[in-house]
């Protein structure tokens, strides 16, 4: 076997891949031709095609083909990785998760955009939104649509018991217990505490509310083993032991927590921006018109309100695309006011500040109004090691929530895992 290795090495060195690493501005090519856009379906049925139709009307020389991606972020990443590292240019532009830029930039799976887009392109976004698309000082993605965590609550039940909308986690827990004791609802709080990326999101939100973080600024050291995070994790575990959150919460991802909430079995529910529309959908929900939405709570003694986690998807460019000119026109239009308004009118949060702050749109969409003046917390994703960092967070936190370890041990072990990941010394 060993003697075969050098032969294989030689074969792969010259045999794999076509095309060049990046494209010089002058090689961009004309803004015409046909391009393929690979994305997980978002918004109401047919929204991507609706956007394409509007784009093609403005750019008759460009035709865009929408290719739906598997509805699972990790599966989509795996598909993109095999396609792009294999040198395929069949996908020209794709939607990428907000946590991908550093990793995709480091692995050359996304084309750096700064040499192609004017500097003032980024003025359309908030600083935070533009910054999370950078890898080593170069933007490798353009924010397409936004998302963030919100707290959904049963306004009918709060009104019935004359309880104010809680602003802190402690108030939320007490309110939930009162509603449970009153027999109005089975569970107090449901969220995404399963063993996956969503738990990192949930933990990051609660940690930020308590003034904690998982990685130091600059992303060089683990900071998760702190008194603030101990408070958070003990509080989360307490919600389960007190019966406020079902013990099944530790195996809930978005669909399970949403189902529990829209069946009318939970008083409070953390989810992304589509939570309200889902709760008001008479086909699947039994709590239509009974749900309110507010910002994430903070912790007692901390400045409020809490911050939702920054989510959403960016547009990224396949370095092997042979129609970069057309792709750049597509990005310019999709992040322009016309497309972003279409998003907002269809219940998807826009990333462009002009549209996000449009008061006319706020009147029709309370979630958008809420998003416009809320602050967001980012996951520590500005390192290519982020998947391992996140794994260190969610496996240990999940273990503590399920009661396999204590919060103290879990945070210490999470800290070790994160540190090893940041030092390139972890699987």
């Amino acid at each position, binding site marked *: 076997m060993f003697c075969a290795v050098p032969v294989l090495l030689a074969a792969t060195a010259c045999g*794999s891949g*076509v095309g060049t690493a*990046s494209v010089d501005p002058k090689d961009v090519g004309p803004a015409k031709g046909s391009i393929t856009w690979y994305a997980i379906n978002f918004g109401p049925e047919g929204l991507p095609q609706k956007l394409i139709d509007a784009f093609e009307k403005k750019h008759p020389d460009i035709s865009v083909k929408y290719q739906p991606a598997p509805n699972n972020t990790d599966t989509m*990443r795996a598909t993109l990785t095999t396609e792009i590292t294999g040198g395929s240019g069949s996908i020209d532009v794709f939607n990428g998760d907000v946590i991908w830029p550093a990793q995709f930039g480091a692995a050359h799976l996304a084309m750096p955009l700064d040499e192609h887009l004017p500097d003032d392109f980024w003025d359309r976004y908030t600083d935070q939104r533009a910054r999370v698309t950078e890898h080593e000082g170069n933007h490798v993605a353009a924010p397409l649509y936004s998302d963030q965590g919100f707290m959904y609550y049963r306004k009918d039940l709060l009104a019935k018991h004359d309880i104010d909308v809680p602003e802190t986690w402690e108030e939320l827990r007490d309110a939930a217990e009162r509603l449970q004791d009153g027999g109005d609802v089975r569970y107090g709080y449901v969220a995404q505490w399963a063993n996956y990326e969503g738990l990192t999101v949930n933990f990051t939100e609660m940690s930020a509310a308590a003034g904690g973080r998982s990685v130091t600024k600059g992303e060089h050291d683990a900071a998760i083993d702190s008194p603030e995070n101990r408070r958070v994790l003990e509080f989360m575990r307490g919600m389960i032991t007190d019966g406020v959150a079902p*013990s099944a919460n*530790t*195996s809930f991802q978005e669909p399970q927590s949403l189902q529990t909430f829209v069946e009318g079995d939970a008083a409070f529910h953390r989810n992304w921006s589509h939570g309200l529309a889902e709760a008001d959908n008479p086909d699947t929900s039994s709590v239509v018109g009974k749900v309110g939405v507010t910002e994430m709570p903070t912790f007692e003694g901390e400045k409020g309100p809490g911050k939702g986690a920054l989510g959403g998807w960016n547009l990224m460019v396949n370095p092997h695309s042979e129609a970069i000119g057309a792709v750049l026109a597509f990005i310019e239009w999709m992040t322009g006011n016309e497309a972003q308004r279409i998003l907002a009118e269809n219940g998807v949060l826009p990333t462009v500040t002009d549209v996000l702050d449009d008061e006319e749109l706020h009147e029709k969409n309370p979630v958008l109004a809420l998003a416009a003046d809320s602050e967001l917390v980012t996951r520590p994703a500005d390192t290519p090691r982020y*998947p391992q960092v996140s794994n260190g967070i969610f496996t240990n936190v999940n273990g503590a929530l399920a009661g396999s370890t204590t919060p103290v041990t879990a945070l210490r072990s999470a800290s070790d895992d994160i540190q090893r990941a940041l030092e390139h010394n972890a699987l």
Partner: protein
Amino acid sequence: MSDTPPEGVPRAEQPSDGDDGHTVAYGRGKRERAAKGRPSAKGAATASGPPPRKRNRVPRFGRVERTVLERRFARLGWGFATPALFVVLAVTLFPIAYSVAMSLSHVEVSAGGFHLSGFTGEHYGLLLRSGRWWHALIFTVLYTIGTVLAELILGTIIALVLERLGGPGRGWMMALLLLPWAMITVVSAQLWAYMYNGVYGVLTSVSEGITGHPVQFLGTRFPAIISMAVADVWKTTPFVAIIVLAGLMMLPDDVNEAAKVDGAGAWTAFWKVRLPLLRPALTIAVLFRILQAFGIFDLPFVLTGGGPGDATESMALLGWHVMFTNLDFGPGAAVAASTALLVLVGCLLFLRAFRARVADEETTA
């Protein structure tokens, strides 16, 4: 093969037309081995017809006394097999060799594809230092042993029942039993996920009815492992049952009758006579199951995602995570290669142990 001689006309060795580099290599190896086994090859080659006297033939592959004609046919066979061998080389050996190469070198991912450079044991070092890999290894080994044992016992029992059943009833029962096996794992795993669902799952509410509080099947470590094993056993026991049943049908009735005539009870007859005779079928079943169970991916991927914590993270799932979530191709390939190596060693050990026992019995018999 235009120069094929008329049948029965022996000719001296010569390379056939269809040979290219690879078949020559194969053919040469064959020839040398054949020549080694038979020093008087030249003499036999010139003789016509079958060899004058039959010596004690050793019935082992490659050592058989062969006429020139037989040798020619063998060569022709290799010639015809060449295209298929190429396909095998391309679709099995190359990817395996490539991933081994990847696991042993620095992998640079760039827009131009993978670049492997240098030789390093660093990826394997990372595995050995990683608690996650050790955990996945221990989990996978124990899970394989546990599920395969359970499936073997249950499958054998089911096969015995089916054998006794006979008639059209057996056909129906077999069809029914094969349903879980026929179902795609991703689908059956999703169905189990619904049943195990912590709030609305059927099994959760059944457990609440019995014990008074709902059991969280997937929420904590050991229940999650057991729940996953149950789903696996449910799905693959029919496979074992079918293979064992086929083995049972092949057994001659007279041994069983002879045992009964000799006064053996049903239990003794099964344990001492039929089970040893069933061993080849059991070996096949166990080998297939070890290979599958050791590489299990789809069930934990859908059912638990490897959780809670890393409780149900199998080697294959770990490899996938490292490769496609972390985009660490070198270490990912090392996980894959280590998995393949371990399962290979495991199967060889199993086969060797099994062969040794058969040989023991043959010599003592």
